[in-house]
């Protein structure tokens, strides 16, 4: 029984620590204040709850279990509220959202950096105008060539 409790407690502690580490990884790697708030609020709260449950399983007694239930309830309630309060204050102070660098729906997936969109649209316009100019010259070539092609047909008829 004691062995089973020890194995269960160690598993809970390691799981909680790994969840907490994933929250810290999100804190480093996420690009935005709001996404960092989300990673801290979920992973931090659940990870600490798992660690405390594991320590209770390692040192079981009645008073420890009662106090740990109080701690888990407080942690469940307060970590989410703290995260929401910090995210709301970030929104109120005008922390900028993460600018999306890559839009699949817009102009078949070219990279449009911040501030370069105008240049990129100019590139698109110049490319389109170049295409239309090529098409115009091509049609002009066709229009020039077709009379020359037709004239030998017409001229024999007209002369004949």
């Amino acid at each position: 029984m004691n062995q089973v409790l020890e194995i269960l407690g160690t598993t809970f502690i390691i799981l909680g620590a790994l969840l907490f580490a994933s929250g810290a990884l999100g804190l480093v790697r996420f690009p935005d204040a709001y996404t960092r708030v989300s990673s801290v609020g979920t992973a931090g709260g659940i990870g600490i709850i798992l660690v405390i449950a594991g320590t209770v399983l390692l040192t079981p007694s009645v008073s420890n279990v009662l106090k740990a239930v109080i701690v888990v309830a407080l942690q469940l309630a307060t970590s989410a509220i703290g995260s929401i309060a910090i995210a709301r204050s970030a929104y109120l102070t005008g922390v900028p959202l993460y600018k999306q660098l890559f839009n699949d729906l817009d102009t078949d997936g070219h990279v449009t950096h911040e501030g370069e969109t105008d240049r990129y649209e100019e590139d698109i316009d110049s490319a389109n105008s170049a295409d239309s100019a090529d098409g115009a010259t091509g049609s002009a070539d066709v229009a020039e060539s077709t009379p020359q092609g037709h004239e030998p047909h017409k001229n024999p008829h007209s002369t004949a």
Partner: protein
Amino acid sequence: MIGVDVAIVILALACLVSTYRILVGPSEADRANAGDLLFFGIIGLIALFGVRAESPFTYDILIVATLVGFLSAISLARALTRGKR
């Protein structure tokens, strides 16, 4: 007990990472958020050190620490907006 040691190392690394975010965070909200995570890490470290030291007072400290952590998060969020709600 080796599991407790491994968890202590992982939590200490997470605390170091959140300290890095406090130092270089671009906005104040990032710093407040990283401080929140650092406080959670300290709570977990207190619990794990209590297991290692076999102290009977760990859970009393944990109750006080969760309450203080909640108050610190709320007051940091309040201080970011300069008292405006």
